[in-house]
């Protein structure tokens, strides 16, 4: 860092370094805008955006290389709360949050907002029940906590299995998203693009482990939040919703109620089925008053929250703060940074819907003649790549609401074009989507590889391995898991969002209660925890299989997105029952729990172990 001629340590200079970085990024955006003015094509600009950001991440990854165990696993425990908050936000917000969320709200209306509530409120559970205690424990990985608190290799192994199942489900979706963007920008086949995506992802994590991932994630957060907010502010300004549409789109929500009647949303049903796309049939702010609707909202919220508090790649971010109280503060900062995107997504969905539906706006398409809509640039462009489709089912030459089919993802990706913003903004949005998917993929790959290298290899197979060997094994595993993830992603088994929701359900089924009760219930013992993990994951997986492929009717609307309710329920019951049937943990374990509950004093595990 000597080129910046800074005094003091790296950590002291963080605000300066990232301010410089943000300034540099803004200068780059301005340069791209000038290039566009000078006649640069949209394609070239998009490629430059992607290339520039990836090179930056790779440079940070290289500068953060390390051969020290605690730097590799927990970034040396010196990440200040605000910066850890940004890194967690990038770790957390995946391709699904960035690309799919606004579109989901657009198509799904109020019921979809359960994701917004669940993916924010989960942090209350993280802060109150988990993060500070796990930080005090001083573990390197989540199975490290389970293995030490409950003792024995079997408990540790079960935790590794749950972690791998949940995180691997999630990481394939992220490699898929990274590959989709790479394929789009570079115009290469998706099957090739996933491997290029993997190389980019590994460049950030291979050499520096958690330390490198931390500092690239901070950089990625800055790119993704700028990329999400700038188009929304710009569009809103241009169309008279004020600079901060987040606080002023109430009128737009109200206006949609009139338009939905006018355009017969929900009255006209689509007469065709278009795979991967749908027509709008749901009223924007309508909330069902029947029991099933209410239960479905609540159970989805519960799954996403408990999943948040059990996902190892999130929990392990709080192992990196300098102290227990910093871990708590850091959760609050994380949620603030996440909130910036999540409270913008519904505004974006609302404004875009208004653009499309309101006949008094020049951008509207519903009710217009099909010939004029087909002539629009963005309709042609996104129609060509299979994101939207127009079918004149009643042959009247006008576009009705049930004749316009689209993929939800278009709401974020095409907004700059729908609103007529310059191409430089489209390039920025692509770089943002890439940052979101890459940062989450990095966190997940590292969580899996670290659990396998630390818990499986070092703790169970070769406890005498020297540092160098441990860190080489960790990197080889990272490479292997990444390759496996890319190979699965290349098969394109599920959509992005389905796989993401499942990861939350898997994690909560197996890990939520063993983690919470490990801190809050001193009586919890080894057989109980093992039963909780095995029966929880087993019951959840069985239920998923039955409702998704086995032809079973879901109980009370608990469908495949919500199977964690069954898994976690089974986990709680079996863990409590088995614990009470077997004898209480020994005095040493109970003293360890007491020690975890107070911030003062040394960590339970030695600082390097």
């Amino acid at each position, binding site marked *: 860092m000597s080129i910046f001629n800074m005094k003091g340590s790296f950590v002291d200079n963080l605000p300066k370094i990232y301010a410089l970085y943000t300034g540099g990024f803004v200068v780059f955006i301005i340069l791209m805008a000038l290039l566009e003015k000078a006649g640069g094509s949209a394609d070239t600009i998009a490629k430059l955006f992607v290339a520039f950001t990836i090179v930056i991440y790779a440079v940070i990854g290289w500068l953060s290389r390390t051969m020290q165990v605690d730097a590799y696993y927990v970034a040396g425990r010196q990440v200040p709360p605000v910066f850890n908050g940004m890194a967690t936000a990038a770790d957390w917000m995946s391709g699904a949050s960035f690309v799919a969320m606004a579109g989901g709200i657009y198509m799904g209306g109020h019921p979809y907002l359960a994701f917004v*509530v669940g993916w924010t409120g989960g942090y209350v559970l993280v802060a*109150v029940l988990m993060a500070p205690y796990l930080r005090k424990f001083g573990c390197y990985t989540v199975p490290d906590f389970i293995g030490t608190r409950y003792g024995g290799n079997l408990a540790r192994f079960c935790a590794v299995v749950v972690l791998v199942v949940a995180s691997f489900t999630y990481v394939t979706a992220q490699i898929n998203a990274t590959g989709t963007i790479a394929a789009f920008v570079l115009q290469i086949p998706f099957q090739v693009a996933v491997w290029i995506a993997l190389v980019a992802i590994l460049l950030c994590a291979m050499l520096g482990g958690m330390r490198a991932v931390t500092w690239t994630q901070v950089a990625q957060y800055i790119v993704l939040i700028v990329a999400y907010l700038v188009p929304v502010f710009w569009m809103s300004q241009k169309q008279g919703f004020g600079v901060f549409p987040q606080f002023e789109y109430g009128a737009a929500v109200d206006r949609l109620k009139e338009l939905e009647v006018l355009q017969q949303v929900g009255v006209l049903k689509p007469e065709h089925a278009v795979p991967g796309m749908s027509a709008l049939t749901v009223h924007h702010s309508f909330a069902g008053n029947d029991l099933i609707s*209410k239960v479905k909202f609540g159970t989805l919220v519960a799954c996403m929250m408990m999943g948040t508090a059990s996902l190892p790649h999130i929990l392990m971010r709080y192992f990196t703060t300098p102290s227990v109280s910093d871990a708590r503060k850091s959760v609050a900062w994380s949620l603030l940074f996440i909130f910036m995107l999540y409270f913008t997504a519904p505004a974006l969905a609302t404004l875009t819907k208004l653009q499309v539906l309101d006949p008094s706006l020049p951008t509207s398409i519903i009710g217009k003649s099909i010939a004029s809509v087909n002539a629009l640039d963005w309709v042609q462009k996104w129609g060509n790549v299979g994101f939207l489709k127009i079918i004149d089912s009643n042959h009247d030459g006008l576009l009705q609401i049930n004749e316009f089919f689209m993929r939800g993802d278009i709401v974020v990706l095409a907004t700059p074009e729908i609103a007529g913003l310059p191409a430089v903004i489209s390039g920025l949005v692509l770089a943002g989507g890439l940052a979101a998917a890459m940062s989450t993929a990095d966190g997940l790959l590292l969580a899996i590889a670290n659990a396998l290298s630390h818990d499986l290899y070092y703790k169970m197979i070769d406890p005498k391995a020297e540092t160098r060997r441990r860190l080489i094994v960790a990197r080889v595993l990272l490479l292997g898991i990444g390759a496996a993830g890319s190979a699965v992603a290349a098969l394109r088994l599920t959509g992005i969002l389905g796989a993401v929701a499942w990861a939350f359900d898997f994690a909560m089924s197996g890990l939520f209660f063993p983690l919470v009760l490990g801190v809050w219930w001193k009586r919890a013992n080894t057989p109980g925890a093992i039963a909780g993990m095995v029966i929880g994951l087993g019951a959840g997986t069985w239920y998923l299989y039955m409702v998704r492929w086995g032809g079973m009717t879901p109980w009370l609307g608990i469908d495949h997105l919500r199977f964690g309710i069954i898994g976690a329920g089974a986990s709680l019951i079996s863990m409590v029952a088995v614990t009470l049937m077997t004898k209480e943990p020994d005095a040493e374990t109970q003293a360890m729990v007491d020690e975890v509950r107070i911030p*003062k004093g040394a960590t339970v595990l030695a600082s390097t172990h």
Partner: protein
Amino acid sequence: MSADISQKEVHWQRTKGLMIWHLIIWFIFSFVVHWFAPQLNKISFIGFPLGFYMAAQGSLIVFVVQLFVFASQQAKIDRECGMAEEE
């Protein structure tokens, strides 16, 4: 030693109390409010139907504020019980 144990006991009781309060608030804004979304939608709040507003923004703001308050409250408990980390 016994003084230390009772101090730890007080600290844990207050920590548990704080946890319960925060989980009650969390429960209300995660589940109770949204259960009544159809009824709340009849009320208009800064131009929004209230049920929609709570899910799109209201609950989120509560969670963010709650976590900053929680961090400082727990830090206060740690300090007063002599259980805070040394700087």
